[in-house]
């Protein structure tokens, strides 16, 4: 099997073989964007089924794996769009902050003041353990928050593009980002900087 397959090869192949060839690659892509393994596997499954149905559209100009990832990417975006509307998060300040351990008290003051971090960014960039903690922190927060933060900070997506992708307003994006940044900050302080 060559890495670049022709249209004809794809058409005649046993699609079950795709699962062994590309399944793990697709799953790791999905898991880099969401924590829930079951949902990630569901989306990989859907991706293969869509790929099978629309294999006639694969033009052979790109790698087959790239084409699969493009389908998966759409599935992931659809998932977060659905999730966002189903849970219909209210961006009302009042219930935005309801949680077991609020970050701010009723007067709007920090319940636990941020601590001072002593670390150099240059060293952390290369530290695999640190990134493991970062991805765990992202995984621990609600997925719709982590997704927006990933797009904005890891992928340097523009706010406007995130609005379009998720079909939400820019103030919703801002609120989600704010929330996500607070949670990431707190998580890293507890799990890394302390």
């Amino acid at each position: 099997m060559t890495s670049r397959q022709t249209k004809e090869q794809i058409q005649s192949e046993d699609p079950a073989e795709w699962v062994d060839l590309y399944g793990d690659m697709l799953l790791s892509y999905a898991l880099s964007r969401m924590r829930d393994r079951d949902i990630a596997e569901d989306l990989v499954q859907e991706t293969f089924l869509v790929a099978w149905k629309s294999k006639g559209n694969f033009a052979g100009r790109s790698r087959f794996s790239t084409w699969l990832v493009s389908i998966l990417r759409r599935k992931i975006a659809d998932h977060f769009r659905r999730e966002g509307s189903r849970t219909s998060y209210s961006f009302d300040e009042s219930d935005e902050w309801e949680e077991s351990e609020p970050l701010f008290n009723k007067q709007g003051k920090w319940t636990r003041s941020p601590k001072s971090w002593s670390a150099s960014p240059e060293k952390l960039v290369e530290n695999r353990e640190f990134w493991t903690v970062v991805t765990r922190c992202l995984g621990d927060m609600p997925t719709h928050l982590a997704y927006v933060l990933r797009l904005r900070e890891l992928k340097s997506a523009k706010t406007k593009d995130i609005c379009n992708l998720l079909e939400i307003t820019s103030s919703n994006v801002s609120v989600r980002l704010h929330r996500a940044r607070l949670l990431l900050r707190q998580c890293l302080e507890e799990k890394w900087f302390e």
Partner: protein
Amino acid sequence: MTCKHATLLLSESEERQLSSRERWGLRFHVVICAACRRFKKQLQFLRLLLSQASPKMLAAVYASDASLSEPRRQEIKTLLRRAAEGQ
């Protein structure tokens, strides 16, 4: 201005231009509040760090745990074979 509001503006200043009223309010709050000063620094620190994350590093972190479960692998194969037969 409360700390809660200040953190919102600090975060939002990365998404949009704050109004001059917001900017001044924020500047004043940060001068008098050590906790929010620290938060501001950490926000910049995180932003810098995340923007420098290497895709290779992240891929390695994720890949250490990314392989389809066996039942799922078989399930997808079965579904695909069924789809292929129904063609």
